[in-house]
């Protein structure tokens, strides 16, 4: 595949290029949409190998000058892949929590974690992704001597936020290593159950490893397979589709064809609904921004228990800062970030879960989504 660089000179050329893009369904890298092609502005199109000659001929025919920006896309993709990873990774003892792991290794890790900690951990089926991969969550609980409330935490709803699944894994590891010796954790587990979903958007996560590091959405196709991905955090049934979303599939905040249109969303929603009277706290982990966000995103009207929500969040932020000085801001999404609807956190709160938070982990933009692995440890430690 090649990426061509074209600067259309006239409106006719623009029109011809738009026609070309639409009929051949070419992958526009810049601008995002054919309707944004302008005369005098850079155009970058990825042309699949079998179509290169046809496209070049068509451009020549219309006297549209072009040059090759990237002669071999596959070569670039291959070059940008991480170096050889050692094939045997002993999990839980040798599992390296200070590195990012591909999904296959995370699946293996879950199996090992349950095996090595079977008195405390059970792996459960949650649902299937669009590409038919199994979603598992881990239940961490001591033998029930009394009814216990539940804390749910999910990571990796957005594919590119790699620090998020890394945190879920770290969290599980810390709990399991220290529950016997750390009085806080042991008291925790005496009174509560923890449910952890290490990667919610599995298809997207894999895609961000294999194809596009900055992918955000899931991988369900729309418009006859010409456009992929719903933003799962706009797909929940809370003021769905009202604000901070796009109905255009090619947008990063495409909210899907309806609330819970995506299998991943349904899998999570169904489960949480079934347990909602026992769930005390819903946590969803994202990056980046260093924020603890409370409901709501779709309105600035505060939730009924806002005082409690804020108090708990502020204490959490203070504890976090106490570790390495990292500062987190606390508040409702609509007030400190921007408006959005259909988020999992808002939905959890509206169905009655009192404490519902989005954590946006490090950093604040220097590295953004591509947080270096050497920050996994401090980030996770402070967030614990």
């Amino acid at each position: 595949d090649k990426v061509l660089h074209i600067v259309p000179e006239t409106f006719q050329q623009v029109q011809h290029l738009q026609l070309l893009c639409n009929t051949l369904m070419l992958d526009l890298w810049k601008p995002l949409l054919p309707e944004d092609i302008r005369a005098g502005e850079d155009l970058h199109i990825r042309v699949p190998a079998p179509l290169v000659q046809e496209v070049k001929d068509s451009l020549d025919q219309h006297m549209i000058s072009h040059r090759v920006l990237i002669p071999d896309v596959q070569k670039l993709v291959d070059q940008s892949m991480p170096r050889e990873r050692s094939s045997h990774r002993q999990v839980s003892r040798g599992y390296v929590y200070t590195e990012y792991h591909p999904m296959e290794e995370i699946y293996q890790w879950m199996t090992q974690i349950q095996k090595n900690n079977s008195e405390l951990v059970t792996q459960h089926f949650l649902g299937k992704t669009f590409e038919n991969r199994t979603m598992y969550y881990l239940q961490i609980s001591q033998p029930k001597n009394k009814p216990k409330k539940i804390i749910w935490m999910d990571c990796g709803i957005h594919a590119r936020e790699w620090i998020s699944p890394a945190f879920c894994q770290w969290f599980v590891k810390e709990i399991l290593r220290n529950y016997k010796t750390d009085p806080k954790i042991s008291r925790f587990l005496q009174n509560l159950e923890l449910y952890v979903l290490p990667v919610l958007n599995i298809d997207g996560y894999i895609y961000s490893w294999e194809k596009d590091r900055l992918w955000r959405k899931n991988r369900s196709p729309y418009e006859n397979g010409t456009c992929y991905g719903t933003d799962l955090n706009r797909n929940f049934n809370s003021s769905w589709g009202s604000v901070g979303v796009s109905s255009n599939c090619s947008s990063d905040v495409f909210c899907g064809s309806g609330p819970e249109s995506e299998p991943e969303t349904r899998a999570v929603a169904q489960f949480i609904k079934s347990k909602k009277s026992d769930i005390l706290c819903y946590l969803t982990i994202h990056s980046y921004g260093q924020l603890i966000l409370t409901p709501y995103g779709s309105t600035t009207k505060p939730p009924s228990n806002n005082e409690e929500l804020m108090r708990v969040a502020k204490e959490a932020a203070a504890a976090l800062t106490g570790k390495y000085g990292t500062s987190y801001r606390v508040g409702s999404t609509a007030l400190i970030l921007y408006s959005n609807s259909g988020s999992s956190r808002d939905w959890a709160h509206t169905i009655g879960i009192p404490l519902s938070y989005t954590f946006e982990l490090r950093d604040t933009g220097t590295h953004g989504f591509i947080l270096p692995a050497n920050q996994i440890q401090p980030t996770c430690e402070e967030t614990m």
Partner: protein
Amino acid sequence: DIDGVGHKYCLELELEDVLDKGSTVSCTAEVLYQLGSTSTAPDVQVAVAGELRGTEEADKEFYHRIRSLEKELVAENIPDSHGNVPPELEPIHLLAGVASGYVIWQNSTENTKFHLAQVKHVKQVKRSDEDLQFDFVVLLHEMVSQ
């Protein structure tokens, strides 16, 4: 709020030296977002209280290193998926940051928050004079898609 003109923000900031963390300089700035016009860049005035560290040595070293390359420099995905930047590409990464800063400024409004997410591609452009020229394709993330 300036009637008929726009919104002006008066800021006090601390600049941290990217190459010498812990070294900071105070500055003040005035940013004016013009009313109605979202296609003009905000007007920015900055006053630095103190000296910005000179970078002539590092600049020279970089310049000579690039000039002595046999082929024009080409690189992709800075940083890589795991956040790593090879040391020899660090200056390129910084240059991209500066260039992105300009682009971000030109496209900023009161409601945007841009960051450089990744340098997708950089290619050195061959020149007949002694200047260095680089062609960057950068990915800028706008907070709204968080």
